[in-house]
C-alpha cells in the first residue's frame, strides 16, 4: 500500500508536466490541427519560463517574491509557447503548409531556441544559471494546509503537491466544461470535425483554429516550465526535456482527446516513467518499463480504430488543412 501511495505521489510530480503538455495539445487537436511541435514548444516554455524567473530575481535581488516569480514564469512560458504556435498556425492555416512537416519543423526550431536560450543565459552569466533557494522553495512548495497533507494515504496522494498540479486539474475541468457546456466549445469541436460544414454554418473556422492552436501551445509550454522549476531543480538542463513533448502527444491519444482523462492519464504516464526506480515486475527488465507508455498508447490507438466507435476517435479533420475553395 505504502508503495502504491509513494508511486502515485511521485507519478504526479512528473505527470503534472505532462498534463499541461497534453491539455494544450488536446485543445489544439480539437480544432483539427495536429501540432507535432509540442516537443519544441515545451523546450521553449522551459527556457523562457526559467529566464523569466531568473531575470526577475536578478532585477529584484533578495526582495524577489515567490508568487510574482511564479506568475512571471507562467507568463513567459505561455508567451513563448503561444508565439511558437502562432508561427505554426500562420503556416498551416493561412499558408496551408502540411501540418506534419510544419509541426516537425517547429519541434526542431523550438528545441533549438530553448537550448539556445538556456546556453546563452549560461554564457552571458559566465557560469551556472540557478534560482535562489528562496524561489526554488516557492516553486516546489506544497500549497495545501498541512492538516490535509497529514491525512493518511489521501493526504500525500491528493494534498501534497505544488500549485502547478492543482492549476492543471482546474484547467482540465474548465476545458471539459468548455467543450461540453459552451456554445463556443461546441463550435470549436465542429471545426475540428468538419471545417467545411462549420464554415457553411457561418462559423469563423480560421479564428477558432488560430485561437485554439495558439492558446493550446501556450498551455503546453507551461508544462516545460513546470518541469524546469520542479523536477529539474530550477536549472537549465540541456537534454532534460527531450522526449517529454512526444510523451505528451502520446498521452493525448491515451486520453482519447478528453481533458478529464488527462488528469488520471498523466498520473499513470508519470508513474510509468519512474516505475523502474520503484517497482520490479518479474521477467520484464526494468529498463523496458520506460516504453510502457508508448506501448499502451499503441494499444489504445489500435483498439479505438478497431472498435471504430464515434466518440472515441480523433477529431475527424485532424491533420488535414481546410481550403475553402476546394471544398
Amino acid at each position: 500500500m505504502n508503495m502504491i501511495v509513494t508511486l502515485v505521489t511521485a507519478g504526479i510530480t512528473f505527470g503534472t508536466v505532462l498534463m499541461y503538455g497534453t491539455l494544450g495539445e488536446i485543445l489544439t487537436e480539437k480544432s483539427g490541427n495536429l501540432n507535432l511541435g509540442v516537443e519544441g514548444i515545451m523546450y521553449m516554455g522551459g527556457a523562457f519560463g526559467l529566464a523569466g524567473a531568473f531575470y526577475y530575481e536578478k532585477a529584484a535581488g533578495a526582495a524577489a517574491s515567490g508568487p510574482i516569480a511564479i506568475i512571471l514564469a507562467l507568463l513567459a512560458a505561455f508567451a513563448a509557447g503561444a508565439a511558437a504556435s502562432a508561427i505554426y498556425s500562420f503556416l498551416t492555416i493561412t499558408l496551408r503548409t502540411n501540418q506534419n512537416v510544419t509541426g516537425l519543423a517547429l519541434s526542431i526550431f523550438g528545441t533549438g531556441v530553448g537550448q539556445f536560450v538556456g546556453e546563452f543565459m549560461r554564457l552571458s552569466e559566465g557560469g551556472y544559471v540557478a534560482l535562489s533557494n528562496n524561489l526554488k522553495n516557492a516553486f516546489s512548495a506544497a500549497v495545501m494546509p498541512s492538516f490535509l497533507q497529514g491525512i493518511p494515504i489521501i493526504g500525500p496522494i491528493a494534498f501534497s503537491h505544488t500549485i502547478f498540479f492543482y492549476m492543471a486539474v482546474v484547467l482540465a475541468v474548465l476545458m471539459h466544461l468548455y467543450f461540453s457546456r459552451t456554445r463556443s466549445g461546441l463550435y470549436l469541436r465542429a471545426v475540428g470535425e468538419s471545417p467545411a460544414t462549420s464554415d457553411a454554418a457561418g462559423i469563423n473556422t480560421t479564428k477558432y483554429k488560430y485561437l485554439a492552436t495558439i492558446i493550446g501551445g501556450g498551455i503546453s509550454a507551461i508544462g516545460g516550465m513546470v518541469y524546469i522549476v520542479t523536477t529539474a531543480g530550477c536549472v537549465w538542463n540541456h537534454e532534460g526535456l527531450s522526449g517529454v513533448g512526444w510523451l505528451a502527444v502520446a498521452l493525448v491519444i491515451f486520453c482519447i482527446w478528453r481533458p478529464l482523462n488527462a488528469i488520471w492519464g498523466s498520473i499513470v504516464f508519470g508513474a510509468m516513467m519512474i516505475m523502474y526506480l520503484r517497482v520490479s515486475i518479474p521477467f520484464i527488465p526494468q529498463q523496458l518499463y520506460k516504453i510502457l507508455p508508448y506501448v499502451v498508447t499503441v494499444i489504445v490507438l489500435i483498439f479505438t480504430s478497431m472498435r471504430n466507435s464515434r466518440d472515441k476517435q480523433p477529431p475527424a479533420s485532424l491533420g488535414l488543412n481546410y481550403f475553402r475553395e476546394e471544398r
Partner: protein
Amino acid sequence: MKRALTLLVVLGLVCSFAFAAGGAESASSAADSNTIKVGLICIGDENDQGYTYNFIRGRDEATEILAKEGINIEWLTIYNIGEDSSCIDANIEAAEEGCEIIINNSYGFEPFMLEVVDDYPEIEFISCTNCASVFDGRDNTHNAFANIFEGRYIAGVVAGMKLQQMVDEGTIKPEEAVIGYVGAFPFAEVVSGYTSYFLGARSVCPSVTMKVMYVSSWSDATAESDAALALIDQGCVLISQHSDNTTPATAAQSRGVFHTGYNNDMTGIAPEASLIGTRIDWGIYFSEAIRAYANGEEIPQDWCAGMADGAVVMTPLNEAIAAPGTAEKVAEVEAALADGSLQVFDTSTFTVGGEELTHAFALDTDGDFTPDSEEAVYDGAFHESVFQSAPYFTVRIDGITELN
C-alpha cells in the same frame, strides 16, 4: 518577374559578400610558443553545478597556476556532448581547430575518442576516469583519475557521525540508520565510491546499512531526483550520490533528510540537508599535464593522485547541522589516510558473503571486461587505484543492498 530577379541578384551579392568577408580562415592556432591550445570536451555544462562544473573550475585553476609560470593556455571548451558518436565529431573538431592537447571528461567518451587518435598522432589525447591507455599501445593517449574514494570515505565518516548522533539522541533506532545512495551505473567507479563511503560511515556508526539505486545515466536531473525520493520513501534518512546533478540534494532538503555531495559544495543548494561534499581538484592534474607538455616532457600515461597531493579535496563542512566533533574527526582521518595508517578498503572491516575478502584481480588485460591480472588484495587491504588510475573495486560487500 524583373523585380524578383533584381531582388535575387541583390540578395545573392549580399551573401557572397558575407562569405567573402570571412574567406580567410579565422581559426586561431597558437601564435606564440608559450600559448598552448587545449580542448576540453564535456558531457554537460556548468549548469549541472556538479561534474562538469568541477572540471570547469579545474580548467580555470590550471590556467591561473600556469599563467604565473609564463605558460598561457587557450581553452576550447565543448559542452553537452553525449557518450555517442558526437564525441568522435567533437574530438575531430578540437583537433582541427588546432588544439595540442584534448581532454575528454567523461568515462564513456574514451571508445569514441580512440576512433580519432590515430589520425592525429601529434596531438595528446586524455581520457579522464577511463583506462584504455595502458594496453592500447599508443603514445598519444593518456588517462587520469584521482583517489576520490578517500574523499568519499571521509564524507562517509561525516554522514556516519550524523547518523550516530541521531541514534544517540533517539531520533532514529539503530537499525533505521539507512543511507540511500544514488548511483549512475552499476560500474566499478560507482561501486568503489559507495563502498568507500559506506565503510567510512560504518567506522563511526556500526549499525548503518545502505541502499543503492542506479539511474542508468551519469547526468539525468529528473531521474536522480526521483531516485533520491524513492530511496527516502524506502526509509533512507541520509542521501549521497554518484551522479552529476544537484537534484538529490534538493530532494533530500525537501523531505527533511540529510545529504552529502559530490563534485561541488552543495550546502548552498541544500543548507538544511547537505553536510559536506568531496570533489576532485582537476586543476592539479591539468596544470601538471600541460606543464609537462609545455616543457617538452611526456604527459604521464596514467596519472593518479590522492588527498595528500591535493587532488581530492573536501568541500567546507556545514557546521550548523553536522554532528559535534565532526571537524576534529575529519582532520584525524585525513591525517591517518595521508600517513598510510588507515586503509580505506581494509579487509578486516568488511565481509563478502560473510567471509573476508582474500583475492581480487585489478586489471583486465584481454579486453573481455573481466579483470584477470594483478592481485589487488595484499597487506590486509584491497588496494584501489594502484595498478591503474581508474577504480577497479567491483566487489559487493555485506551491508549494502542494490535495489535495481
